[in-house]
């Protein structure tokens, strides 16, 4: 018999209570995994989307309007000839409800721009020219909208032909309705307006040169802000809010878990008062008794954490099939996050065991003889 078997035996005394406490922690940890995984996944998805489009720097408005704030397409001309700029592609990126779908990314791209380059045709073709009343759909977007090549798609006031289904290589791209910029400008009445400029730098551009370039763009185009593709999302106020909120909500859930474990461990200490006194009476040091309680609550946290990770991963998998989010993001459930979740859970267990452990160390062994 090892110390660990004593610890696990302590938990098995009340299997129902232990189980319920574990479920409590598991739910908290599942919230951590789901919320943080989703918000991180959003960042990764979006960054991957930019990367597959071959974008190094994004120039867009970081205002706080309902939709991205458009600016004059002529602003792009100022950027085009700057040093280290290999190519630019102007876009109008929108997030609107299309037909029966709740929210769809509409990505209208400058005809001939490099952002078209990463699209692999799965079926059909790309639009013939920028004036053809046609769209191509990312695979997920086609799924969500229930469209195939040859169908029509109502975009704002116009009926457009679905001419192709494409694989964009990233979840954001696959969830998009993609069409020519000038066509979308016409449909939405935003003639001459864009809200995003994708910029590709010349190969071999150093970090310092890139930083200098963004600075120059920012002074040339005050209506928008240039940021490197990776920073783009992280700099967004929305992302920060969501990230803070997901951690906030998670911590709240974890706090509930802490209280649950603490309650269980306190009950354990009260219930096993006599047992603890016997342990002290037969010569156990107080430190060992405290360690036993802490290990029990840590083990409870660990098992709850494992359960929470499993629950969280399953939950996320179910969640992303919801029509509201399908195609918008891919959760980032990497091993580090999952490990973090388990570590949090164990720490929660240990913290929750501190007070009950302290209580147990205050007991006098003579109390074993009474009752």
């Amino acid at each position: 018999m090892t110390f660990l078997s004593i610890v696990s035996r302590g938990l098995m005394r009340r299997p129902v209570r232990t189980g319920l406490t574990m479920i409590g922690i598991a739910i908290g940890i599942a919230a951590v995994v789901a919320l943080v995984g989703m918000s991180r996944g959003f960042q990764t998805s979006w960054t991957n989307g930019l990367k597959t489009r071959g974008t190094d720097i994004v120039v867009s408005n970081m205002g706080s309007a309902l939709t991205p704030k458009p600016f004059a397409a002529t602003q792009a001309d100022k950027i085009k000839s700057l040093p280290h700029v290999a190519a630019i592609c102007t876009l109008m990126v929108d997030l609107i409800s299309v037909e029966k779908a709740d929210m769809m990314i509409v990505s209208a791209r400058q005809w001939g721009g490099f952002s078209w380059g990463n699209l692999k045709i799965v079926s059909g073709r790309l639009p013939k020219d920028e004036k053809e009343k046609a769209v191509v759909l990312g695979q997920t977007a086609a799924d969500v909208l229930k469209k195939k090549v040859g169908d029509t798609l109502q975009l704002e006031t116009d009926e457009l032909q679905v001419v192709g289904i494409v694989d964009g290589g990233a979840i954001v791209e696959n969830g998009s309705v993609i069409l020519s910029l000038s066509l979308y400008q016409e449909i939405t009445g935003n003639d001459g307006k864009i809200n995003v400029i994708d910029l590709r730098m010349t190969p071999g551009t150093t970090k310092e040169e890139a930083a200098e370039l963004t600075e120059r763009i920012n002074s040339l185009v005050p209506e928008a802000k240039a940021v490197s593709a990776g920073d783009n999302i992280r700099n967004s106020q929305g992302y920060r809010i969501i990230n803070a909120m997901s951690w906030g909500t998670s911590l709240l859930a974890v706090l509930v878990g802490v209280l649950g474990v603490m309650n269980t461990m306190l009950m354990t200490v009260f219930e096993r008062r006599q047992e603890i006194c016997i342990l002290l009476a037969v010569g156990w040091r107080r430190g060992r008794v405290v360690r036993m309680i802490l290990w029990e609550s840590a083990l409870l946290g660990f098992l709850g954490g494992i359960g929470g990770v499993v629950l969280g991963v399953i939950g996320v998998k179910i969640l992303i099939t919801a029509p509201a989010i399908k195609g918008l993001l891919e959760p980032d459930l990497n091993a580090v996050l999952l490990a973090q979740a388990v570590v949090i859970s164990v720490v929660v267990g240990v913290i929750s065991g501190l007070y009950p452990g302290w209580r147990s160390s205050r007991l006098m062994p003579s109390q074993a003889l009474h009752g």
Partner: protein
Amino acid sequence: MATTNAGDECVFEAIALKKEYDDGQVQALRGVDLRIHTGEFVAIVGQSGSGKSTLLQMLGALDHPSSGQLLYRGKSLEESSDLAAYRAREIGFIFQAFHLLPTFTALENVQIPMFETSRPVAERKTRAMELLKAVGLEKRVHHFPSKLSGGERQRVAIARSLANGASVLLADEPTGNLDSENAGYIMDLIVNLHREHNVTLVMVTHDMGIAHRATRVIAMRDGHIVSDGAGVPSAVS
């Protein structure tokens, strides 16, 4: 005060030992002076509330005295920095209510005190097996306390008290919860331990029959020692 010296070395020495509870409203021990020597079998008798169990707890360092001094082999227990080690290695405790841990088997219960020693896992198990064999429970080692009879439980408790080779056994009414047959068996076991291993035995009991087997009987009343000597004091019997 008369004393019966079984050996030269003094195991316990109590000087004006007092114990109060509830801010002095209850005085369990009112100044006890006592010396117990190596190899003695001391029975402490007295009515309920006489302070005999409290005295035993003080000897076992399960509680602190309110005042007075208690020396173990010449050293003050109060000043000892490691009472747990004292309880683990020097003392074996046998309780009336056995106090086994219900979620552990007989074999595991006997191993519990050994966690405070450096014995490796396998050796703990072997030692526990030997001890259980010595108390005649070799066939019941994997039983949980709930599956053992009262007598068997007390035998497990005795094996546990010997786990770390204690030189002093403190027994609080060890046969109080047993029928006469089992009580006789347990007493024989304890007395044999005392005799064969020269273990100092201090036993609290109501049972005058048991007290008769002791080499020395101390009678207590209202927190005082009222008689101390060989045989059962007439005041108590």
